[in-house]
């Protein structure tokens, strides 16, 4: 008779399943409302949690929130535990669970979780993700957190606008960095390539310097650098490399179109292709930025196109040479760098208590007099708030340079419609260019028209 009980249980499960087919359509259709779907999934999530992990129940009555974070510089493990412990001193009723995402599968995980109603409460990421989810109606607007005090303290209009889609604020900013490149100082010195590097001031250099240096490296029999295009990881580096060579604009000023198929953009791509064809540079369609960094750090290649303050810190212990940071070379010697802006967003899971707890947590992590600066330091980047003083006691001579690079940060288009989809097109385009499978112009045109189609589909 035990079997009968099992039958019964399974039959009930079946009824539930069949029942859902009927209302499945409604469920998914109602996305912007968020209320019905929200409460619904939430109730379900709770039951799942209960059966999944009984020990989590011990905090009866407490609010439990989940934080997912992308690897932002050094932000991770030890520091996160510390800041949560500190947060709990002031907010003992809130328990925070943390999950770490990576850049390769993190987006897929987020999509799955969002569609399955198990999205986290808080996400630490860039505007490209947070603002997009916000626009898609999955996040809580944080307009009330953008006080005049914050705006004045940040004092940088472009940072504030990057956090919003023009209507609401979806992201609360924590830290910012510029993305630049780095060279293996000793290898460049010994090969004579260093003479083309400007070691004064902001270290800006030109496309011509870059080409001359590559020639020196080749003479010395060294693999100079590798343009990675095996995936979208670290594509801010290749984007900046291409657009700077001849000062091309990546998008139009209104953020409605992608423009790298312009004359200057194609010139930049063509130069890179020529350099590869001449063996002065190489490309690899099998690797992404993380692999390139590894190659750089173990001395296989002599430059990295994916460098920033946090990477310098991460690789400091494993390199046997001096990584020397440089801006990207450009024809006029004035680089336009991409920035990485990082901050928190709150998912709309339909539970007011959790949302409040999430707000408290974000405020604590970003704005607390003691922990705010520490959080910024944990990312390895620079504070968005002008009043924060970090790295005051840092003995890293490069800090000043990293900070100076922020002045070269250009227009932030990462929150532009279709940015995510564009990324998937970008590395495929690079592959077409380097292999000569398509002409540079053709490849760039295809990339632009596909990306524009995605962007346009948002405003339909």
């Amino acid at each position, binding site marked *: 008779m035990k079997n009968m009980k099992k039958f019964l249980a399974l039959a009930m499960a079946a009824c*539930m399943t069949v029942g*859902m087919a009927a209302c499945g359509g409604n469920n998914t259709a109602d996305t912007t409302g968020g209320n019905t779907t929200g409460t619904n999934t939430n*109730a*379900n999530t709770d039951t799942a949690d209960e059966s999944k992990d009984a020990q989590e129940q011990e905090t009866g009555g407490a609010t439990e929130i989940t934080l997912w974070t992308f690897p932002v510089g050094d932000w991770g493990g030890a520091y996160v535990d510390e800041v949560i412990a500190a947060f709990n001193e002031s907010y003992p009723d809130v328990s925070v669970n943390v999950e770490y995402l*990576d850049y390769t599968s993190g987006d897929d995980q987020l999509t799955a979780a969002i569609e*399955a109603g198990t999205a986290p409460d808080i996400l630490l990421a860039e505007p490209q993700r947070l603002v997009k989810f916000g626009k898609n109606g999955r996040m809580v607007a944080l307009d009330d957190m953008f006080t005049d005090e914050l705006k004045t303290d940040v004092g940088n209009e472009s940072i504030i606008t990057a956090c919003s889609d023009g209507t609401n604020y979806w992201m609360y900013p924590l830290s910012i960095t510029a993305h630049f490149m780095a060279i293996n100082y000793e290898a460049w010195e010994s090969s004579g390539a260093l003479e083309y590097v400007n070691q004064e001031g902001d270290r800006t250099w030109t496309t011509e310097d870059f080409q001359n240096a590559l020639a020196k490296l080749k003479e010395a029999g060294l693999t100079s650098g590798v343009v990675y295009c095996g995936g979208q990881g670290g594509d801010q580096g290749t984007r900046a490399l291409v657009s700077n060579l001849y000062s091309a604009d990546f998008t139009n000023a209104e953020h409605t179109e992608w423009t790298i198929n312009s004359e200057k953009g194609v010139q930049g791509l063509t130069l890179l292709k020529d350099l590869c064809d001449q063996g002065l540079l190489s490309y690899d369609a099998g690797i992404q930025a993380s692999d390139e960094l590894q*190659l750089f750090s173990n001395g296989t290649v002599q430059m990295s196109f994916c460098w920033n303050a946090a990477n310098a810190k991460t690789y400091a212990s494993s390199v046997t040479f001096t990584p020397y940071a440089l801006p990207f070379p450009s024809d006029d010697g004035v680089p336009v760098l991409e920035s990485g802006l990082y901050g928190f967003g709150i998912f709309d899971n339909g539970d007011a208590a959790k949302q409040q707890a999430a707000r408290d947590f974000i405020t604590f992590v970003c704005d607390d007099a003691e922990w705010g600066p520490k959080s910024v330091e944990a990312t390895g980047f620079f504070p968005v708030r002008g009043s924060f003083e970090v790295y005051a006691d840092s003995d890293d001579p490069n800090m000043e340079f990293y900070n100076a690079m922020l002045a070269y940060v250009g227009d932030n288009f990462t929150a532009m419609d279709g940015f995510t989809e564009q990324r998937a097109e970008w590395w495929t385009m690079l592959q077409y260019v380097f292999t000569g499978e398509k002409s540079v112009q053709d490849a760039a045109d295809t990339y632009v028209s596909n990306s524009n189609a995605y962007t346009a589909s948002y405003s339909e």
Partner: protein
Amino acid sequence: METQVKKTTAYDVVALIVLIVLAFLFIFPLYWIVTGSFKDAIAINSATPEWFPSEPTMDNFVRLFDKPALRWLANTVIMAVAAMVLTCITAAMAGYVLAKKRFFGQKILFSLFVCAMALPKQVILIPLLKEMSFLGLHDSLWAVILPTVGWPFGVFLMKQFSEGIPTELLEAVRIDGAGEIKTFTQIVLPIIKPGIGALAIFTFINSWNDYFLQLIMLNSQEVLTISLGIAKLQTEMSNDFGLIMAGAALGSVPIIVIFLMFQKYFTQGITMGAVKG
């Protein structure tokens, strides 16, 4: 065991040599995983590979166990065993009646099972996701177990096995007045036991290896499986092959040991399922 007199021909010798070379190539990846997991970063990243770790280090494993690697392993075992048990129960019952009973809708049902067998899970990924969301099971091991049990291969296999149950025996038992449940548990089950063994092994390996379903259904550290764990190691630190190999070794060595211990049953089981077909 063969009556025929064995003549060793030239072909036999050549074949044996080719087989040995191939065997070496097939063992090699495993060898590379195990030795790689004991190599330090220098040996791993050197362009000249070290055929055997000259300075074996436990460092990779130490770093691996900084992560909840044993938890991953435990989750995988729980998941695979649960899928295995549920599949065996449901498939044995269904296979038996499909083979031995005549009832309304039998043909259609069986063809439906066969058709669905070839269906890749990727096809239904979004609906499955939505369904798990509705059931509140996403990000729990159930989200992986339930679709695995639903896959009709087991039914197909058990039907093939149950064809071998002598109809006269079932008749005799029925005349003796045994109920359906008793007939099933006391007569049918013992006969198809080897088949269940085969299915159990099959389901276990399949669900252990079903990376795709795990990938879309599981997020939290506490429910990650070893496959996901290794994949995560590889996306997080793509070139730290020492650490990745340590993960791969942890994920594969236990199941290989089990396999070698029970290899007789493994191969018997696999064959029985198919040859009957």
